[in-house]
């Protein structure tokens, strides 16, 4: 007998439920079913949950992205701060002024207020005045023009150019060291900062009057000593040896006097001219991107929010992951154990 014969035989003699069982089942079907425990709450199916969650996340990201830019603009406007002035070294009179980021027009407009914060050299006192100014210009053409203009300003105010360095390709920089009369340093700074957008300003003032007074006192002392030696040499009773000694001494003092007078003149010269180091630079193109369209901004914002949602999801997975893994292992273990038990039960004849 083949398998086909057996199959045919088994199918032809299919078991039929007895009438008693049929009546019992009819009676069961006629009764009202009692609610099974847990039938009220069922976990939603995964195939519905996943698209629903994804759709909600996308919708939330899009909604926030549409609404968000207005808030961001408000925050940006309040984030703008006025120029801050910091006095870092009161002893030497060093003063640092940080200018805010502003458009070139605003830089020119703010210039007056910024220049007024730069300290003026004290009248009647010798001071070493040094200023470093950073200016941003639009492009290389503006850089060239500003460099020439800075030199002209220095010369027009009675100053001169100490050093100048200019370099340009896509972006350009120029570094100019100027000396201008101390009395006109504020005017010079005012004109220089108008060349472009003021990015930084630093002023250092060092008092030289005390040094100058000390040198003057030394000159007075030396002159007194020279006069005294001259008076001694006027005595005809001096021995030739003593005379030669005093003469040599007076020559030495006269040399010292000339040196100190030169030193004093140098200090006075230093105090009479202020040093301005001007750093000019063009705009870095990558720093100022072209303003994006509203659609682009919305898409960028949506992408950013989706990234954050992904981060939050990842964070949640990291936190919940071990518990889920433990639960999954427990579930797999239970399932395997149940399968083994079923196999054992069904292995009986």
């Amino acid at each position, binding site marked *: *007998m*083949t*398998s086909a014969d*057996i*199959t045919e*035989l*088994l*199918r*032809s*003699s*299919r*078991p*039929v*439920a*007895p009438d*008693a*069982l*049929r009546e*019992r*089942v*009819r009676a*069961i*079907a*006629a*009764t009202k*079913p*009692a*609610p*099974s425990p847990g*039938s009220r709450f*069922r976990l939603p199916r995964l195939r519905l949950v996943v698209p629903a969650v994804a759709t909600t996340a996308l919708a939330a990201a899009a909604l926030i992205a549409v609404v968000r830019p207005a808030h961001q603009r408000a925050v940006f406007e309040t984030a703008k701060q006025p120029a801050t002035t910091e006095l870092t070294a009161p002893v030497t009179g060093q003063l640092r002024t940080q200018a805010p980021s502003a458009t070139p027009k605003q830089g020119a407009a703010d210039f007056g207020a910024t220049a007024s914060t730069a300290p003026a050299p004290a009248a009647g006192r010798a001071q070493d005045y040094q200023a470093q100014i950073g200016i941003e210009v639009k492009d290389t053409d503006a850089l060239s023009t500003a460099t020439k203009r800075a030199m002209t300003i220095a010369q027009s105010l009675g100053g001169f150019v100490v050093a100048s360095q200019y370099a340009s390709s896509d972006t350009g920089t120029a570094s100019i060291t100027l000396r201008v009369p101390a009395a006109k340093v504020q005017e010079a700074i005012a004109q220089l900062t108008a060349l472009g957008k003021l990015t930084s300003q630093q002023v250092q003032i060092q008092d030289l009057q005390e040094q100058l007074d000390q040198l003057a006192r030394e000159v007075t002392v030396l002159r007194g000593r020279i006069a005294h030696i001259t008076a001694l040499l006027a005595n005809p009773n001096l021995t030739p040896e003593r005379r030669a000694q005093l003469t040599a001494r007076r020559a030495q003092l006269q040399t010292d006097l000339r040196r100190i007078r030169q030193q004093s003149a140098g200090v006075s010269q230093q105090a009479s001219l202020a040093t301005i180091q001007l750093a000019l630079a063009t705009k870095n193109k990558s720093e100022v991107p072209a303003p994006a369209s509203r659609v682009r901004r919305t898409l960028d914002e949506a992408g950013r929010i989706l990234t954050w949602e992904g981060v939050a999801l990842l964070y949640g997975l990291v936190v919940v992951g071990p518990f889920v893994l433990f639960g999954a292992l427990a579930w797999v273990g239970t399932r395997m154990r149940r*399968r083994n*038990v*079923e*196999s054992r*039960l*069904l*292995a*009986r*004849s």
Partner: protein
Amino acid sequence: MSDQLRRKEGVHTVTLDAPRTTRLDARPPFAAVAEQHLDDVYGYLLYLCRNATLAEDLASETFEKALRLWRRFDPLRGSARTWLLAIARTTALDWFRAEERRQRREQAVAAPDLHEDSLSEGLSPALEQALASLTAGEREVIALRVVLELDGEATARVLGISQTACSTRLSRALKRLEERMTHERRLDGAHHRAEAPARPAPGAGK
């Protein structure tokens, strides 16, 4: 008007409001399903446990469970027959487990006594014996695939295994059944040959 309100007002004729058409409303009534698939459930359980009384009890319990779970039945996920057979299998396995525990407890007191009935009136004793020699797992796959003629997918779903595993199990079961049948026939033939000389030849005494 709701049913509750009608009862409160003494109205006995209940007219249901127009039901919302949902996917679940497309299901046939439970009574019709039970009537239609009772033979399948009973046959499967009879093949599985080889005891008519037990199969009847388990079938009855299966339909009680099915009635409780009827709200969860989704026709789109499978046929009612597959769903009922899966419940029947779970019910039978639960009974097997309980029986195993009971036997372990009472082994010292009384040996298990489970009467084995004929699976069907049309089966030969040889085929009955061959089926009895199979394991319950082999008999259930024969019952589902051969007797009830379920397709591979439905059978695999009822058994909770893959279709490949289901085909393998069926193939092995049929092979064993065939071997058993051949063996039984040989034994039967040998038995007949052994009995033949002892019989008196017809007309020998005359």
